[in-house]
């Protein structure tokens, strides 16, 4: 049931003080980079004086630190933006604030959202909410952990290839990756323009529906937003659901397979039909993703050049040195790796062989999804092949790290909505999530299904 409702009608100042207190007492998780304490208390007082009203009046929340938001720098967990104070806020933040929500801090992430463990943060990793020796997941690791630790009832994140769903799965919370274009990307530090989406972490589905209702909608400042379509729905009975066979292989952790199968049984028990389906293009999804996404991010990160804002290298003599040294010191290794891959696949002579071919394969993948959705209302599978791994376990091997994205990138490439919902834990007590995926604009229907299952 909704946790957010518990905050309504109470002293906003007390809500904010409680959240700040919990944030401070959980500093060892390193989920937050900065608190926005001063501004949060000011806004809380405004709410208490009745100057700000709305559906979320006095409800504290946290944003991933790649959202432009007042009260603290927007760092993207990078040195290059370490002291960057934005003159304006992201549309999603503005929408929440206009309903009276109060941002109390900025969550840790992999620098520029490049990663799946939050270990690529320039300011140190975030620890898993269930096991301090394990990763939070990423890139929205901080947002997942503050939600899992009940520091705040919800947090915003961004998902380019699994960055909301994977940490949600690792920390046992609900993670929503909406349809591409459902939520404005305005004011969020861009990673890959064609797959970036803005979504939320909550502890339960009802709260996710409430937040989605508020943050979705057309925004004239983002030409790729869709017309308003999200409307909380009742669950449709007797749904046909496809279990993606390609995600249920022996490479996947047995406990992950077991929790997924149990969820499938729950769906059947609720009167839905679940059949195994094939998604043959899924095996190429990771290869497509690690061409298209680096290409786009190499372009989107070109603006961090030390000229107009952010970190600028000292002691340089030429313009080329200024660019080179600024970007060398301002970006983390993973940023540079991806910029190099992206620049390479866009180079003259390689564009056709890599980028264009990947885009064609992407179209084939989209077509496969569309074909499945002619027959099925939704698809189901695991979120990640494993529960949260140990800190440092995958850092030496980028390919192994990339493989954790294998089941989240297909829907990202296709622009489809997907949820990570808690499906139990391992014997050792690590959370495991299950992934529900639907056709474009089926976000509310997916959430309704998840809500029905939550009560079973």
């Amino acid at each position: 049931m909704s946790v957010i409702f518990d905050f309504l009608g109470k002293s906003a100042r007390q809500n904010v003080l409680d959240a700040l207190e919990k944030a401070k007492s959980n500093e060892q998780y390193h989920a937050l980079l900065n608190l926005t304490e001063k501004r949060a208390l000011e806004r809380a007082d405004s709410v208490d004086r009745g100057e700000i009203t709305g559906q979320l009046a006095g409800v504290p929340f946290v944003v991933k630190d790649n959202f432009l938001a007042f009260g603290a720098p927007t760092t993207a967990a990078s040195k290059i933006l370490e002291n960057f104070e934005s003159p304006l806020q992201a549309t999603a933040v503005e929408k929440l604030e206009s309903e009276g929500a109060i941002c109390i801090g900025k969550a840790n992430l992999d620098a520029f959202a490049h990663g799946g463990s939050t270990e690529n943060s320039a300011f140190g990793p975030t620890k898993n909410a269930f096991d301090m020796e394990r990763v939070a997941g990423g890139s929205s690791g901080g947002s997942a952990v503050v939600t899992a630790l009940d520091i705040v009832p919800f947090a915003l994140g961004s998902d380019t290839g699994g960055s909301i769903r994977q940490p949600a799965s690792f920390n046992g919370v609900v993670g929503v990756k909406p349809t591409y274009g459902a939520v404005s990307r305005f004011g969020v530090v861009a990673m890959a323009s064609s797959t970036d989406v803005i979504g939320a972490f909550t502890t339960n589905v009802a709260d996710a529906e409430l937040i989605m209702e508020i943050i979705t909608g057309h925004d004239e400042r983002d030409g790729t937003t869709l017309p308003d379509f999200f409307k909380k729905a009742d669950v449709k009975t007797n749904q046909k659901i496809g279990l993606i066979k390609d995600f249920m292989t022996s490479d996947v952790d047995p406990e992950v397979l077991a929790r997924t199968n149990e969820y499938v049984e729950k769906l059947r028990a609720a009167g839905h039909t679940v059949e195994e389906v094939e998604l043959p293009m899924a095996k190429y999804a990771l290869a497509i993703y690690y061409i298209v996404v680096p290409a786009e991010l190499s372009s989107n990160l070109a603006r961090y050049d030390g000229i107009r804002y952010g970190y600028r290298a000292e002691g340089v003599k030429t313009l080329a040195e200024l660019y080179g040294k600024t970007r060398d010191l301002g970006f983390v290794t993973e940023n540079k790796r991806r910029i190099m891959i992206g620049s390479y696949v866009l180079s003259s002579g390689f564009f056709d062989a890599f980028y264009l071919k990947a885009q064609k394969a992407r179209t084939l993948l989209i077509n496969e999804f569309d074909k499945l959705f002619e027959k099925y209302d939704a698809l189901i599978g695991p979120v990640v092949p494993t529960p949260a791994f140990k800190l440092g376990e995958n850092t030496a091997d980028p390919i192994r790290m990339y493989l954790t994205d294998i089941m989240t990138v297909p829907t990202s490439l296709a622009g489809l909505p997907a949820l990570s919902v808690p499906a139990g834990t391992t014997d050792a007590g690590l959370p495991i999530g299950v992934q529900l995926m639907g056709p474009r604009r089926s976000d509310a229907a997916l959430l309704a299904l998840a809500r029905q299952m939550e009560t079973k």
Partner: protein
Amino acid sequence: MFDDKTLSKYDLTIGIECHVQLSTVTKLFSGADNDARDKTPNSVVSPIDYALPGMLPVLNREAVNLAVRAGKALNSKIANISRFDRKHYFYPDLPKGYQTTQMYNPIIGPGLVNVPMEDGSSIEVRIHHAHMEEDAGKLTHHGAHSLVDLNRAGTPLIEIVSEPDMHSPAEAKAYASELYKLMTYAGVTLGDLYHGNMRFDVNVSIAPKGATELGKRAEVKNLNSFRSVERAAEYEFRRQVELVERGESVVQETRGWDEAKQKTSSQRSKEDAQDYRYMPDADIPPIVLSDEDIKKIQSNMPPLPSHYRESWGDLGFDSSAINTVLASREIAVLLGDIYPLAANKEAILNELNVDEPGYIDLTKKIFNWFISTPDEYINIDTVLDGTVGPRRLLELAQLVVGGKLSSTSAKQIFLALFNDSNVGKSAIEIAEEMNLIQESSEDAIVAVVDEVLADPASKQAIDDLRAGNEKVIGFLVGQVMKKSQGKANPTTAQKLIRERIKNG
């Protein structure tokens, strides 16, 4: 350098890329003021223009409409779907690290421009395509440091790429000038050349006469006048011929034009060419235009130069004279209102009390004033605000036909019409003020004639005239004109001189 004979051993080939600044109110992807002229540096720059993190481009539909109109002026097909791409390079005047342009699917497809030449002939220049893109900012260098001004960053441009269809500097100049007319008439650009509203990159190559393959080309960048297009092409022609005659070869490179030295010089060679890593811009949805959309945008477009050329054909001016008045769209519109007369023809002829040939006569006088007056003498503001309209010009022409003004005086008054101090005055009022009304009444002129004839200096001429030397009458009339300060009607003066001498 060379005689024409050496030059004539080579074919010259020229292609031109032209950047046209679109006259939108706001920039291509932001709401910032698009008119950067004379503004304080960095005063018309939005977070989108300076590439704040998280900013997204929002396409200005007005810019699309102007591009669609430009396409019509170029006789081009407009693409039903066009897209934006990113062209990457690092430079401080390029905030995003890429320029948003159209590499793969430009909005304006192949077209054709008919270019009239000075001698009355014309050439056809094919348009390869034209695409939309944003301008970069501006860098100024101050010894040890440089300053960035982003006022122009994000200004919408179209780049018109011609086929290499020009073969002389004169053709290059004529094309540039015709393109200017097309774009200003189509209402696509303000056409302020001084502020770089249109900039030409001229690609020049030579090949031995009759060769089928083009030579290596040099691109002279950023020319902002028709004359510099012509001179740069001429200079490049000679430079390249000289290289080849010396046994060297032309290098493919970018060159700059030094207006003071009237020379081009190398800026960067092909070896330094950057890899722009072009890629589709996923932040901007494709521009989708149905045939109906295109038709709608292109309807009610203002008339193009060809319209005026056709409708003035029967006035008998040569094409270079017509080109002179077409150089300014405002003047063309004004003259278009005078000729040909359309709807209210009868009323106007009645009011002026002339027949049709009489009206054409008035029209020609007005055209001739404009043809013979350099642009800088014409205050376009007075044309734009209607101060100098058809009525005043026709009135002035009638004063000449009616003998009230000499042609010389009329030209003086024509120029005076554009003077701010004469706003609201009729032609005749100005003529009176300037004391230029011609005296036709015999009584007034007789006295002057008598005075001239009584002057001993005239004696020789009078004797010669009496002896039958008709030519000297001009001298005597001239003296009368001089004494009357130009106000005497020369025909009347001549008649009176003859009468006096016959009787005397």
